[in-house]
């Protein structure tokens, strides 16, 4: 218990240090210091890209990340420091990603073509069978994740893949805490149903 409290305390100190560092860089970037902006981008590029890639898919992730980071640059004056810089930045990524998905022509997801494509992309090369199987399952799972409604997918990505707190997800998605929890619950159920209806056996108990 004491250890957990100590660990929580350390996490809080680390988080506060990260936030202070970000706020300092934001102040410098606002004053025209492009090197400070570069450092901000470098600190957050990984999470920006991961969220973008999981929400819009790998093909558009680079464009969405770049677009969101440039929008953030031009809107630095609107960052008030009430939420963490990461949450503020990911809100822009989230909105950019959802706008991108709205513009996209819908494609059928989860059909047999997707499964064959996933299987085909796993072919070739000399990988151990277990690794090949894990890669195939990962690719199938990514395709199924793409079958979720965008706003459900975003919440599931932020919580279940990025491990963010509900409060931060509420900031990012600009939604009340209750809506975030409800959306996450529906997203998980939706994904369970998609996987159950898949020909591949995901061994999900009823």
């Amino acid at each position, binding site marked *: 218990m004491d250890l957990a409290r100590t660990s929580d305390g350390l996490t809080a100190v680390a988080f506060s240090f990260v936030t202070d560092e970000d706020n300092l860089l934001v102040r410098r970037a606002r004053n025209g210091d492009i090197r400070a902006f*570069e450092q901000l981008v*470098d600190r957050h*590029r*990984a999470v920006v890209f*991961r969220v973008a890639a999981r929400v819009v898919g790998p093909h558009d992730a680079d464009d969405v990340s770049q677009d969101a980071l440039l929008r953030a640059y*031009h809107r630095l004056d609107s960052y008030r420091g009430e939420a963490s810089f990461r949450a503020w930045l990911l809100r822009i990524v989230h909105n950019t990603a959802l706008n991108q998905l709205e513009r996209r022509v819908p494609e059928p997801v989860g059909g047999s073509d997707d499964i064959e494509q996933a299987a085909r992309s796993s072919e070739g090369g000399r990988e151990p069978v277990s690794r090949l199987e894990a890669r195939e399952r990962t690719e199938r799972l990514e395709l199924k994740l793409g079958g979720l409604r965008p706003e459900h997918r975003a919440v599931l990505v932020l919580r279940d*893949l990025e491990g963010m707190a509900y409060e931060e997800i509420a900031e990012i998605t600009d939604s009340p805490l209750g809506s975030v929890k409800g959306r996450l619950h529906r997203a*998980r159920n939706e994904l369970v149903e998609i996987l159950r209806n898949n020909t591949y056996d*995901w061994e999900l108990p009823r």
Partner: protein
Amino acid sequence: MNDEPETGPAERRLDEHLELLRATPPEPSTALVPRVVRKARLQSYLRAPLRVVGMIGLAFVHGLAALVGGSRKSS
């Protein structure tokens, strides 16, 4: 994650599957940061002159409107 609501067996199994995705996070290319910074720098250089051009254009339109309005009144 102690604020996590009760999860059923299917959700727990789903979480095990999602570990596959957590273990293989997509990574940005090394070109992302330089590209973003280059564009931000270019856009910030262009912003000030474009603002001046916009203000001159606006002043010109206002001036023209005043001239046209003034000449209509006098006729």
